[in-house]
């Protein structure tokens, strides 16, 4: 608890962002209980209604409750982002750690062939190319985003392990007879993990954005599942007569991305040991 107090001291924005991230997770987990309506139930009698007591954020072109769809959209966004970050983190860190620690021909293959191959494409283009040929769907979306997500972790982990492997405590651990796995897991991971955690937090923001972008383009989760991106795409047609269909999902994406970005910045400042903190 001490580290939370230090981290949020004099940084109200970070505190607010952390609170918002917790709120997003709670909404995603308990969407079924919180949501006032079923997000897929249509009520054509109340189509394109603006915000009212019955529908706090209005209703869409099929009379579906926008608030319920935003709430269920949170579940999709958070599920996709957490899954992508977990898989990318594990694959990227594993490859990066092995490459950085052993620094041999495996590292050359990893760095020159694998990482550079994936970096020859702008990130979202790779995901679009992948989904264009495989077809849309939740698992394919996660797979496509993992394809671009692991690179950042691999590069960062490789750099961290390359730097740390030359340090005295690693030499001491090796000299005392510790196995490579023990040196990596027990000695090096705790000393390299901090920037990777920051990367994961900022990566959550990027993944939420990428998921929403792909859904907006019709390459994400197929309808009728409510994704923030697809809600925005559907709402564009009614920009003249029902702007609330665009404003609320847009605000949801923006606030979620902002919260993870602010939290990532705060974590980076907290882990940065240069200068006084306490």
């Amino acid at each position, binding site marked *: 608890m001490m580290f939370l107090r230090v981290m949020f001291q004099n940084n109200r924005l970070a505190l607010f962002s952390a609170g918002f991230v917790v709120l997003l997770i709670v909404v995603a987990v308990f969407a079924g209980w919180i949501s006032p309506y079923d997000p897929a139930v249509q009520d054509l009698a109340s189509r394109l209604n603006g915000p009212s007591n019955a529908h706090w954020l209005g209703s869409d072109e099929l009379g579906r409750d926008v608030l319920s769809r935003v709430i269920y959209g949170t579940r999709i966004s958070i599920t996709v982002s957490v899954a992508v970050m977990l898989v990318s983190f594990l694959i990227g860190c594993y490859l990066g750690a092995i490459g950085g620690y052993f620094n041999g021909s495996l590292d050359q293959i990893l760095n020159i062939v694998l990482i*550079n*191959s994936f970096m*020859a*494409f*702008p*990130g*979202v*283009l790779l995901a*679009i*190319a*992948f989904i*264009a*040929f*495989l*077809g849309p769907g939740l698992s394919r979306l996660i797979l496509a985003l993992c394809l671009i997500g692991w690179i950042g972790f691999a590069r960062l982990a490789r750099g961290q392990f390359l730097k740390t492997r030359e340090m005295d405590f690693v030499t001491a651990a090796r000299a005392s007879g510790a196995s490579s796995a023990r040196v990596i897991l027990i000695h090096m991971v705790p000393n390299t993990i901090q920037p990777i955690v920051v990367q994961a937090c900022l990566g959550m*923001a990027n993944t939420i*954005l990428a998921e*929403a*972008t792909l859904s*907006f*383009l*019709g*390459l994400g989760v197929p309808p009728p599942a409510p994704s923030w*991106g697809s809600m*925005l*795409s559907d*709402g*564009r047609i009614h*920009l*003249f007569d029902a*702007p609330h269909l*665009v*404003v609320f*999902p*847009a605000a949801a*994406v*923006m606030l979620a*991305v*902002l919260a993870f*970005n*602010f939290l990532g*910045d705060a974590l980076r400042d907290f882990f940065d040991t240069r200068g006084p903190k306490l």
Partner: protein
Amino acid sequence: MLLIFLRRFLFMGLSIFIVVTFIFLLVHLVPGDPVLQMLGEGAQPADVEQLRHALGLDQPVYVQYFHYVHNLLRGNLGTSFRYQEPVLRTLLRRYPATMELSLASLLLALLFSIPAGVQAAVKSNTGQDRWISFFSLLGLSLPNFALGPLLILLFSIQLMWFPVSGIGGLRHLVLPAVTLGLGLAAVTTRMVRSAMLEELSQDYLRTALSKGLSRRTVLYKHALKNSLIPIVTVVGLQFGNLLAGTFVTESIFSWPGIGRLTLQAIQFRDYPLVQGCILAIAVTYIGVNFLTDLAYLLVDPRIRME
């Protein structure tokens, strides 16, 4: 210097080779039979076989790959099913619109971000700096698919200053360019600020000021010039994001470029056209990265001397 150029050029060639291989393999990722996917389940067997033969999918993979690369080198990217014309011709028709939009966004982003970043660094830790930093983070978090419709709502529907969509004169370009360029402007502002902060503590600036040079000259001709390397790197790398952003922006504003063409091709399962579009964007991205590397040679004499 020639050696650096050659090394970068070879690396560009390797990247293009990797991209071409990946794009070739994409068709083989299609679940089931790609020919059936293109023609639909009710297609006649004769038509299926004819298309399979036309695409060369009835041959071993290595032969297909050889033919694909051979055709690419001759400028033959296949034939678009939807437009019934060579893919290269369709791409060449749409490419200038995408470049016009991307370059306008880049220009707009630089025009905004350089003075804003310099100002934030000069006034660091003041209210002005905090506002600029806040707005740049806001710009970074506001996705273009949200910004585009909001700009249309405000400036096209409410104020009626700009047209809702389409391509034409300068007025048609403003909203799509702002939508596409905002993210780049936000990243560059942050980069200019941090690069300038590093530079402002250097002794040579104090010397320049004490010699009687104006503050503006010292900031923009001395400090900014020396901060250019990290800025050029970020702008070069971010140009890829700008190109990826054209998918959304062109779709929102019905801009007839390659981004919108790709989405239409995906919708119609026009796989040769999808491959051509992805290749065009990826090669542009690699080309921009190559130019960025060359720009280092111009802005940093130390690299030229290596």
